[in-house]
């Protein structure tokens, strides 16, 4: 069909070997050589029509051996690919490494309608020999790496995955194609290919189809110069293919060679490379390993979108699945359009069944109008555009086009049978998903709510997700639920996760396969690693314990707990100890969910952490000023434990003596810690408000730190809000300070005071304000009116506050450098 339609005068600069269509046909029949013992079949990757023609032809030609364009390095395992237990899509992944560094990966995806896989499956069925004949890894890719001269440190950008054999590159870019696109009234190469070789090719005989495709490739190739082909790496690859052909034709009686059409057109004229020639990759010490991995339609679509083969895998899969029906294309179009209208409706479009019916009819009509025999992907997309988008396509088309894209693409994820055996970790991942009754598909992210207390299955799921999260797989993201690490939302009964499967997960898993054979193994080994790194830092070790518990790794956790007990004695960081205690207390609260009761040591550990922390309270004063916030938090936790969970708390006498010692140390160092310990002791019944009030006076006299009073107050309030709430000396001292301090000093200390008072609740603030107003002899209304400050004052306040924040940072830095006493000791 095409042979006669091809314009022979398309570019005068090109010398064509054949001058007329008849001559061309004769020449191409010779290239195919179907009546000889070495026959060639031109293919395009992932073309259902091609796959069907090839299948028919193989059954007739019955070769002893099929040579297929694919990485020869996989030949020792080639039979695995056709294992009927696999479910496509899957891919061969070639990884190029140099001195252990991954330079890049190349994918050779296979789906049911890939001619290569059809050939492999046929060979298994017929007992023929199958062999890959291409260079192991796109030599071109390797050359890219080499040209950079960055052998030592591969360019990060170049580490992107590359496609194994970008056949359509040369085809799509050929000058002939450009001309053909124009003359066929198409918009691009994909449309031309689909129109001529899929939609119109479907009803041709294998021979006519192969001749058409070969004619097309032959003419495309005529527009290329040798240097272009060399630069593309095509020459080296074809020499490799030719060598395999030569060797095979000596070994077997009848050989079929199945390669990309672009190569088929030239293979008979290519001189074979020298046997066992060292490839450029070998010369450059680049090692390549090839393994089999599952793949998915969305990944295939994205990959094909810009390089090789055809995008819209779900559409073509439908065609393949219905290949025995009268018009599989119409069935595929119907499936896609109905599903797309459903998806778009789900996203908020008003589309009904009538619209879907209309769209299918339209697509068929359009294909018929264009004389293309069957509906193609292009017509499906255009039909959705025309029939589903009610308005300006640019403004309103997003949802519809998104839905069509999604349905053309599909969500299918391949599965590998046991023969693949390469990555037990991937198998474990899939088995876990199956056991946990989670379907594996590569679609939109799915939200999952887990009933942690009511369902054993959900608890197991949660643990599995936590493991995945810990392994940094892009699979599960926790979007809500009790957080045992931070202690937030512990009352929640449900946990919510957002799940999305992508084939990258398998690459991620494969990368981690060295750590273990199951997800649990890898998580355990990483956890142990983390614990080893934490050495004697009890807070970090505790976190590791908690992570282990939420992942359900109870056995390794038991080992960690022994280590943690030792670490607590050796840890001299009081904050770390108190934090560890707080975390362990949280763990006890969430015990039911964690089944941590089985981990006997936790309560004793928590007690030990608080005990060791209490013994080191003196060190609080020496903590860097930027950690004041953590100190206040840790102290209030300790106080809470003492007041509410005496069983976990250290003995009172011990606690008091160390808190008092800490206070003495803090007096010289940090007003905030001093205040916190004052408040802490006050809550425990030590000290009185008068003592605290005195401190305010002392601090207000030590003019070196204008934030002294405010910081102190903040410390007090963090531990004991009651200190300020009732009438009493502390309150009076504060009022006196406010009244008596000079205006500028007062303004300067205002930001720190304000921060201190924000620790009160709104109602508490109001009560404090009311009492203060009373003391100043003004009514509530007047007090409110005072807020109407003049713009000048407001501006000044703003400047002060900014200055304060800057100064505070400076003090923090200074204090960290020289812990010299700046505050006058009490009574001095």
């Amino acid at each position, binding site marked *: 069909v095409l042979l006669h339609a091809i314009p022979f005068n398309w570019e005068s600069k090109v010398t064509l070997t054949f001058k007329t269509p008849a001559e061309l046909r004769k020449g191409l029949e010779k290239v195919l050589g179907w009546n000889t013992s070495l026959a060639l079949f031109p293919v395009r990757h992932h073309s259902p029509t091609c796959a069907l023609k090839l299948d028919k032809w193989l059954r007739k030609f019955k070769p002893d051996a099929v040579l297929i364009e694919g990485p020869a390095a996989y030949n020792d395992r080639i039979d695995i690919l056709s294992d009927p237990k696999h479910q496509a899509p899957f891919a061969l992944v070639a990884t190029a490494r140099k001195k252990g560094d991954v330079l890049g990966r190349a994918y050779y995806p296979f789906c049911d309608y890939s001619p290569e896989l059809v050939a492999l499956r046929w060979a298994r069925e017929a007992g023929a020999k199958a062999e890959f004949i291409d260079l192991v890894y796109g030599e071109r890719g390797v050359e890219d790496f080499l040209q950079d001269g960055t052998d030592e440190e591969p360019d990060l950008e170049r580490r992107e995955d590359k496609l194994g054999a970008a056949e359509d590159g040369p085809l799509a870019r050929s000058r002939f194609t450009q001309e053909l696109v124009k003359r066929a*009234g198409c*918009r691009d190469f994909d449309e031309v290919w689909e129109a001529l070789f899929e939609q119109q090719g479907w009803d041709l005989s294998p021979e006519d189809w192969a001749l058409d495709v070969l004619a097309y490739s032959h003419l495309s190739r005529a527009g290329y110069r040798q240097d272009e082909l060399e630069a593309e790496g095509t020459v080296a690859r074809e020499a490799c293919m030719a060598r395999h052909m030569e060797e095979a034709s000596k070994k077997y009686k009848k050989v079929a060679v199945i390669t990309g059409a672009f190569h088929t057109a030239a293979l008979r004229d290519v001189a074979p490379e020298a046997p066992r020639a060292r490839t450029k990759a070998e010369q450059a010490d680049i090692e390549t390993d090839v393994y089999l991995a599952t793949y998915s339609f969305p990944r295939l679509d994205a990959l094909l979108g810009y390089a090789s083969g055809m995008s819209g895998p779900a559409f073509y899969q439908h065609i393949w699945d219905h290949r025995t029906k009268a018009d599989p294309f119409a069935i595929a179009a119907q499936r896609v359009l109905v599903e797309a209208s459903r998806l778009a409706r789900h996203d908020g479009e*008003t589309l*009904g069944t*009538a*619209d879907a019916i*209309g769209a299918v*009819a*339209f697509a068929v*009509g*359009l294909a018929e*109008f*264009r004389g293309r025999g069957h509906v193609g992907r292009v017509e499906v997309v*255009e039909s959705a555009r*025309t*029939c589903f*988008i*009610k*308005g*300006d*396509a*640019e*403004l309103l088309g997003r949802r519809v086009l998104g839905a069509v894209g999604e349905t053309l693409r599909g969500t299918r994820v391949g599965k590998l049978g046991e023969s693949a055996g390469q990555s037990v970790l991937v198998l474990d991942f899939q088995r876990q998903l199956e056991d946990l009754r989670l379907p594996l598909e590569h679609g939109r992210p799915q939200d999952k709510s887990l009933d942690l207390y009511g369902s054993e299955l959900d608890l197991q799921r949660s643990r599995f997700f936590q493991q995945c999260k810990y392994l940094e797989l892009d699979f599960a993201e926790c979007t809500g639920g009790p957080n045992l690490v931070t202690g937030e939302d512990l009352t929640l009964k449900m946990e919510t996760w957002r799940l999305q499967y992508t084939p990258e997960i398998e690459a991620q898993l494969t990368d981690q396969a060295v750590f273990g054979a199951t997800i649990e193994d890898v998580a355990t080994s990483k956890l142990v690693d983390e614990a080893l790194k934490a050495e004697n830092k009890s807070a970090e070790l505790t976190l590791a314990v908690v992570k282990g518990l939420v992942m359900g790794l109870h056995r390794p956790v038991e080992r960690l707990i022994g280590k943690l007990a030792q670490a607590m004695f050796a840890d001299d960081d009081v904050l770390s100890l108190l934090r560890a205690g707080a975390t362990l207390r949280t763990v006890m609260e969430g015990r039911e969910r964690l089944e941590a009761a089985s981990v006997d040591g936790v309560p004793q550990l928590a007690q030990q952490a608080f005990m060791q922390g209490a013994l080191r309270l003196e060190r609080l004063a020496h903590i860097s000023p930027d950690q004041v916030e953590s100190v206040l938090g840790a102290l209030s936790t300790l106080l809470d434990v003492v007041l509410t969970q005496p069983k976990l708390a250290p003995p009172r006498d011990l606690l008091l003596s160390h808190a008092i010692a800490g206070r003495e140390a803090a007096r010289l160092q940090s007003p905030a810690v001093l205040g916190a310990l004052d408040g802490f002791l006050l809550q425990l019944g030590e000290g009185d408000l008068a003592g605290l009030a005195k401190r305010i006076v002392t601090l207000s006299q030590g003019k070196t730190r204008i934030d002294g009073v405010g910081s102190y107050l903040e410390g007090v309030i963090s531990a004991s809000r009651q200190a300020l709430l009732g009438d009493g000396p502390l309150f009076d001292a504060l009022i006196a300070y406010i009244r008596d301090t000079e205006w500028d000093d007062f303004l300067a200390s205002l930001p720190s005071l304000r921060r201190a008072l924000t620790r009160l609740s709104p109602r508490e603030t109001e009560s404090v304000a009311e009492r203060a107003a009373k003391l100043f002899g003004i009514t509530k209304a007047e007090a409110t009116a005072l807020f109407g400050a003049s713009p000048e004052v407001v501006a000044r306040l703003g400047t002060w506050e900014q200055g304060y924040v800057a100064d505070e940072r400076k003090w923090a830095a200074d204090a960290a450098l020289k812990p010299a006493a700046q505050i006058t000791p009490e009574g001095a």
Partner: protein
Amino acid sequence: VADHNLRPSAEILYRDELAALEAADTFAKPANWRLSPKMVAKFILGSRGQKLGDKKNEIEITQKFFGDDALVERCVVTLASQRGLLLVGDPGTAKSMLSELLAAAISGTSLLTVQGSAATTEENVKYSWNYAMLLGKGPVPEALVASPLYTAMKSGKLCRFEEMTRCPLEVQDSLVSVMSDKVLLVPELKGDANVVYAQEGFNLIGTANTRDRGVNEMSAALKRRFNFETVRPIADLESEISLVQREAEKLLTRSNVKVDVQREVIELLVTAFQELRAGESREGVKLDKPTTALSTAEAVGVAYAAGLQAFYYGNAKLTPQDVVSHLAGAVVKDQTDDLAKLSNYFDVVVKPRAKKQGGIWSVLLEAQKILPKVEKP
């Protein structure tokens, strides 16, 4: 008669082409269609070098719509279906022209047209009465004044509905039953006459402007009865240049004005239009898009006006100066800051280009002084 019309309708203007297509048409035609869908598309997209008719009266079909062949194909397929066609897009993107061409090719007439506006009533759309006769004879068929839609339904032809979304919503909604049941009820008449059944071949082509009242307010019920096609400005520079030149020359000839319309000058104009429309120059300089829709039709308008100026005030040769003096009027419609945007275009695009390429771009830069001055606030 037609030759003296200020603007002959498409079926008259292209009667020879239509006749040749009809004669050569061997494809199946939907009922009541004058041409087959394939020939309708060929009429609009041109025969691209192929000649039709016998040796004596050979004729090549000119291309009339540029930039999106697939869109035309889809329009034709829609019109052969049960659904109406609604063309949406910026003003001046040739929506109305496309609808006229489609109607002329399919039904042989493009005159069954309802012009939508805020004042359109249901009577304008369906039917009204000859009141003198109505008073004398009562509601009889002879007293009924058929609308273009009524006529199109009865005769199985295409009805055009211009600016559909400018009509009040209730008037738009009167189309729902026409489009879904393909009937028009005339309750005033007795007997069989009170129902008009649409004949095969009847369909509706609407146009709607996205700049003013858009299609958003249109009822969902009505939207469902239409397939929408968005018509965009021509993206390809070469196609748009050819089109503007040809159309401007056609208009000038029609006005009995003989001007040398140089491609170079038209290229200048179209380049400026395309760059301002896209908000980016060829060199990648970002530009402020003017609020006006800079359509191809607008470019033709500028070229035509500039051509007239060149003829009456110049030496009958189109120059960049002629173009610039009409450019401001095209770009600046109601927003004065559009003038600043145009002026900025000269500063950041024309000036560097004049420096680098010289030639006609320098002449264009020189002509900048004709532009009205931007008032500084």
